[in-house]
């Protein structure tokens, strides 16, 4: 762990964060808004990477955790008018409960079977939102009376601070002994168990941590947008974007996932003039990365550094 603070990765990350923190001084509100969303997305992708890259659980339903957190926070604020911060906290806790629900099948089934269960969880949540439209706003979306702040710069700093803190915690966790045990239990549960590690406990912890950050980020995003809708926090397509971000940035790197998310959102914006082809181009680039650089951006960079 001590080695990290002297490594090149640490200095590069530090420089990136410092540069990013000064951005509100000289870029437009439009760019800030874009990056704010990208940072929240980065946390989604990092939380997903902890589950997939380390615990080895193929979670097709990151939006089940994100959506639960986002909608809980939104509904509490909408119905009872509780303070924003209380709602965000309760949203994150609801997401932890959702994470435990998701963890139950994960301890029984593996691989594609677990993947499908998570996908079903998302579809159920989506059906729930549509069926209980009185409570959730249905397909139109939920209006949220309060926002954290309307200042673009402040929102940006909150998002950046949140992403940096989450990245530090998740990265630290992944490099800690717990992360190593998780990695072992993901790759060979029988052998890891035979070495005396409690796999169930570690996996549950991974689900809880991942769910907590997903839900927290989802709740913050909702209070930034001022609305929660299926299309922004629940839809399978959103989950696909989270997965693509993590794989693109480099799985099992945590930090790479955030990089991938920022790239995905910024690239999508740059390609906006191409209209309908934007998604096609982003998917094609992602496929090329998957085929030719399976380690992702950060994976490729790190392995080059390791070699030299």
């Amino acid at each position, binding site marked *: 762990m001590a080695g990290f603070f002297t490594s090149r990765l640490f200095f590069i990350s530090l420089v990136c964060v410092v540069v990013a923190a000064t951005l509100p001084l000289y870029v437009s509100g439009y760019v800030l808004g874009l990056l704010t969303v990208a940072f929240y997305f980065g946390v989604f992708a990092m939380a997903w990477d902890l589950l997939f890259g380390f615990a080895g659980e193929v979670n097709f339903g990151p939006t089940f955790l994100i959506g639960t957190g986002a909608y809980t926070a939104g509904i509490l604020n909408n119905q009872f008018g509780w303070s924003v911060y209380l709602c965000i906290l309760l949203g994150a806790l609801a997401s932890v409960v959702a994470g435990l629900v998701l963890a139950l099948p994960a301890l*029984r089934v593996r691989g594609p079977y677990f993947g499908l269960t998570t996908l079903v969880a998302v*579809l159920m949540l989506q*059906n729930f939102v549509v069926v209980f439209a009185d409570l959730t706003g249905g397909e139109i979306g939920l209006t949220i009376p309060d926002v954290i702040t309307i200042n673009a710069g402040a929102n940006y700093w909150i998002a950046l601070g949140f992403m940096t803190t989450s990245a530090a915690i998740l990265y630290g966790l992944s490099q800690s002994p717990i992360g190593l045990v998780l990695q072992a239990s993901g790759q060979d549960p029988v052998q890891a168990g035979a070495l005396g590690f409690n796999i169930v406990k570690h996996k549950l912890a991974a689900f809880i941590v991942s769910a907590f950050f997903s839900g927290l980020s989802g709740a913050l995003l909702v209070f930034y947008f001022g609305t929660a809708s299926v299309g922004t926090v629940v839809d399978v397509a959103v989950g696909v974007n989270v997965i*693509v971000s993590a794989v693109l940035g480099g799985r099992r790197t945590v930090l790479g996932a955030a990089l991938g998310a920022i790239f995905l959102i910024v690239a999508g914006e740059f390609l906006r003039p191409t209209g309908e*082809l934007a998604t096609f181009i982003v998917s094609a680039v992602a496929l090329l990365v998957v085929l030719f650089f399976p380690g992702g951006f950060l994976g490729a960079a790190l392995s080059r550094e390791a070699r030299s």
Partner: protein
Amino acid sequence: MLALQILIDGFAISALYALGATGFTLIFGVSGVLNLSHGAIMVAAAVAAWAAASVLHLDTYSGALVGVGVALIVSFATYFVVVKPIQNSRRIPNEEKEIFVLTGTLLWGIMIQELIAYFFTNNAKTVLPIVEGVVDIFGNRTPRNNIFTALVCCLVIGLLWLLVNRTRTGKAVLAASMNPRGVTLLGLELTQIYLVVWAIYGILAGIAGVLLGMFLGVSSYSVGPLTASAFSIVVLGGLGSVSGSLIAAFVVGYLETITAYLVSPAYRTIPALLLLVIVMYIRPQGLLGRR
């Protein structure tokens, strides 16, 4: 009369599901690949059939053939562009190939979907039915095309059964799904078996896609739901088990139809999803799956 109507409508949609899921499960059984571009291939077939009829002014039979041909081409493209490079890659560890194939085919499916949306817009397209008109079955007016759809599906599945159980190639495919290494030891080329399977898959998905285009109509938005329904049917029946998929297809098809008729079309997919969750808990390997 409602019961009869549910029986008739449910049969056509179930037969379609069965056809779509059979190819999907065959590929998984033989090569361990879960092809998440499945829905995109079906929609590509339907849109090609539609375009052949309305843009190139071919008759409905040729249009359907064009659709199946396109599905076959896209199926081979999926294998050669996405699946084969990942399977042969040395940089991807073996235990992670599964997730890479999933991600790769998912992205490939999105690419196909976006291309269809770009060239043919997002609007729903209905392929002109091959058989027109309506018949009266004990007081229920049923489009002749529904009966035609059900018949074609049963016929194709019957032919597939003959192919797999009665021909040399088919037996090789069946053997490969049980034990790939054993097949190579017997001197059969595994890559050729893969090609055969992807060809069968392409034709099945193509026929299912074109029939779906006639039956319900498709748009580029149907890609995700189609993949999800095939995936859940196949898991419900047991991955790799063709007969399990057939049973599961009828269970899901009828559950959806009954819910749509008796409760509300809005809740159509919910009971099937619940059933899936219950089966996953009680019998994770699916109805007829083997571990």
